[in-house]
């Protein structure tokens, strides 16, 4: 059984590049098209925290180090 995890974003620092979105194996990341952060981007967010498996792929690809991953 896959590990349970939690992924949190420093959304103010996110540049909305989407590199994290594509590499998430459980497809729970997206760019929030409804909001614009202080930098002027649509920040990434987690659509379903319950499904996170703490694989760290998203944080590994994030060029701006806005992601913290915890294993529960």
């Amino acid at each position, binding site marked *: 059984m896959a590990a349970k995890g939690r992924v949190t974003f420093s959304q103010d620092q996110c540049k909305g590049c989407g590199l994290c979105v594509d590499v998430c194996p459980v497809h729970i990341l997206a760019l929030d098209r409804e909001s614009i952060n202080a930098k002027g981007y649509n920040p990434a967010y987690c659509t379903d925290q319950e499904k996170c498996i703490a694989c760290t792929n998203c944080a590994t*690809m994030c060029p701006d180090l806005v992601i913290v991953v915890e294993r529960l």
Partner: protein
Amino acid sequence: MAVVFERTKGLTPISTHYCPGCTHGIIHRLTAEAMEELGVLDQAIGVAPVGCSVLAYKYFNCDMHEAAHGRAPAVATGIKRVLPDKFVFTYQGDGDLASIGTAEIVHAAHRSENISVVFVNNAIYGMTGGQMAPTTLAGQRTTTSPLGRDPAHAGYPIRISEMLATIPGATFIERVAVDSPANVRKAKRAIKRAFEIQLEGKGFSLVEVLSTCPTNWGIEPPNALKWLKENMIPYYPLGNFRDATKEEVSDGQ
């Protein structure tokens, strides 16, 4: 509950000036994490280049020295000769290292200067607005090769790792890419190994990191990773080109 991924102490809290999706940020992180894990942050002196990563001195959380375009290996040489027990690295792009600074990198390798080089190759001049780099691929359109690089006119793209690997003093030369989580993890191992070689006093080490430039390539960040994989890796194959520390072992057997 355990934090399995958080921001390294090797980087300052400053948000970088890099464009969205530019993989410089990933390579900065790998460099900083390698220093943090090896416990050398407080012994480190980094040399920043000219180009997109010109402001690297603001991002690495250690003593930093801003060099002129291409001269980082010479500046690092000066620092290392004064402080041989400290950890000295350069962070350079392809315009900086493979064009205007070719002499400096070749001779630093020839002297087996005990420094480590993180060489970021994204096949374009980013900071100046997307001009042709020495590493620009044949046919690749840039603002100074608007019809695509024509090798008959501008020559073929330069393969730095292969060239440097022919130099006896180049102790460790490896090419990696940051186009996928698996490759990013491999890149981290290579950078850490390069740094260890310096700490072991074994001489010159360089890791070439294939990187993207979504803005000047004109490709969305996730697709830029695909472009890197499909276009750059075939011409710039990944792998280790030289590890003299292993050759020493095999020679002895």
